[in-house]
């Protein structure tokens, strides 16, 4: 399955309560005030929707939205 960038952003928006338009590619989770529980929720929803299990250690508060999107897309089964 190909996972689109928009689909990933939609999950982040849903789980963080932020507007998808606010999720600039170069912004970090920290800058967007997306806390650790929201990150955990996002990882949970990504695994649920796309079958992509991400080790939380692969992310940190300084990870950008673009880095996260690329990680999900790389790991998504094709």
């Amino acid at each position, binding site marked *: 399955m190909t996972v689109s960038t928009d689909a990933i952003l939609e999950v982040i928006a849903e789980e*963080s*309560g*932020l507007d998808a338009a606010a999720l600039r590619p170069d912004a970090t989770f920290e800058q967007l*005030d997306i806390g650790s*529980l*929201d990150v955990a*929720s996002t990882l*949970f*929803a990504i695994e649920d929707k796309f079958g992509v299990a991400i080790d939380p250690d692969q992310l940190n508060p300084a990870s950008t939205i673009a880095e996260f999107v690329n990680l999900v897309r790389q790991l998504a089964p094709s």
Partner: protein
Amino acid sequence: MSRKVVLTGFGCVSGLGIGLAETWRRLAAGEGAIRPLLREAPPDHPARRMDCPAAWVDAGACRAALAAEDLRPMGQLDPLSLYALTAGLEAVEAAGLRGHASLERRTAILVGCGSGGNTTIDQAFERLYARELAKVHPQTIPSSMMSAPASHLALLLGCHGPTFVISSACASSAHALGEAMHMIRSGRVDVALVGGSEACLTLGSWVAWNSVGVMAEDTCRPFSQERKGMVLGEGAAMVVLESEDHARARGAKVLGELAGYGSSSDAADMTAPDLHGITAAIRMAHEDAGLAPEEPALISTHGTGTRINDPVEAAALHAVYGPALSGHTVIATKSAHGHLIGATAAMEFVIGMEALARGVAPPVLNHLGPDPECDLPLALRPEPIDHRVLVSNSFAFGGLNAVLVGRIAP
């Protein structure tokens, strides 16, 4: 200095609608919100045989209304918190307190809840037990904990004062209102945002309620012949209480007074009502308010519509008021909005105060004729009233009773 506790804002959401204006419009028109609820279980699931009457909230409209407010992110909101926020914001807006300095340090938030976030819990359990998945949503605990609605209101309004949930089943929000009244009387806070919320129309919760054997298959008919039981509703109602001094100092419009509170524990039975405990709570509320039993009042009953509860409440009213009972007007609005469990007392208090202000008693719906065991001066159609006081009864499972007395502003 007066520590009299006045009412300056109301908010509510239930099957009747979002907001007090729509709620009152439908009540005054004699409309009810109880209708058949079709469950989301698969067609061959045994629970589908339990499709039932209920009074549910348009949660989608609630979420849309809240989203339009452009509020700060607060994590996943179970309907329990969604309803509390909807009603709480309405009450604070109505009181003109949004952004007021007193919210920060001098305000308490007390929310009555009979249970936690049932939807969130059901969804988690469905993953574990039905789909045999290993993980549940990371926000399952913070979203479903019973205290979440109080925390969400504090987050939203920036309140740093005492904030918690009170739970006493069907009397939860009456206890919340009464205890908050005492917090203001004692000077601990100047303002309280207080009420109740409940969102219990999930399959898991409903099957559990049904197994108690108190649910009606048709509708809710308080004090009527052929009544078959209670009907579940959901929603929230919130009230702004203030010390009279605080309200006057900021020029707030005073809607009335929370004048009295009585509470008692039957210590008798986990489900059956107890005449002594109930009459004690009603008398205590009258004494606290300095209200003579003879003064004509609007009496908002607990009035669940079960075979057992209604005659005991009727007997308690006769015991407390004697011949003076005929001068009172008795209502039972669960016939319109269903039983909101932890939120029901606050909903009924708000409706009762609105009824006094409008001079109209909302009718007891679905009544099929008098039951000699429940001989009460019921308002069976919208009835003009000129009472100045409300007595609002709540008698919960577990024998926990709470009665509130409200007075409208002169």
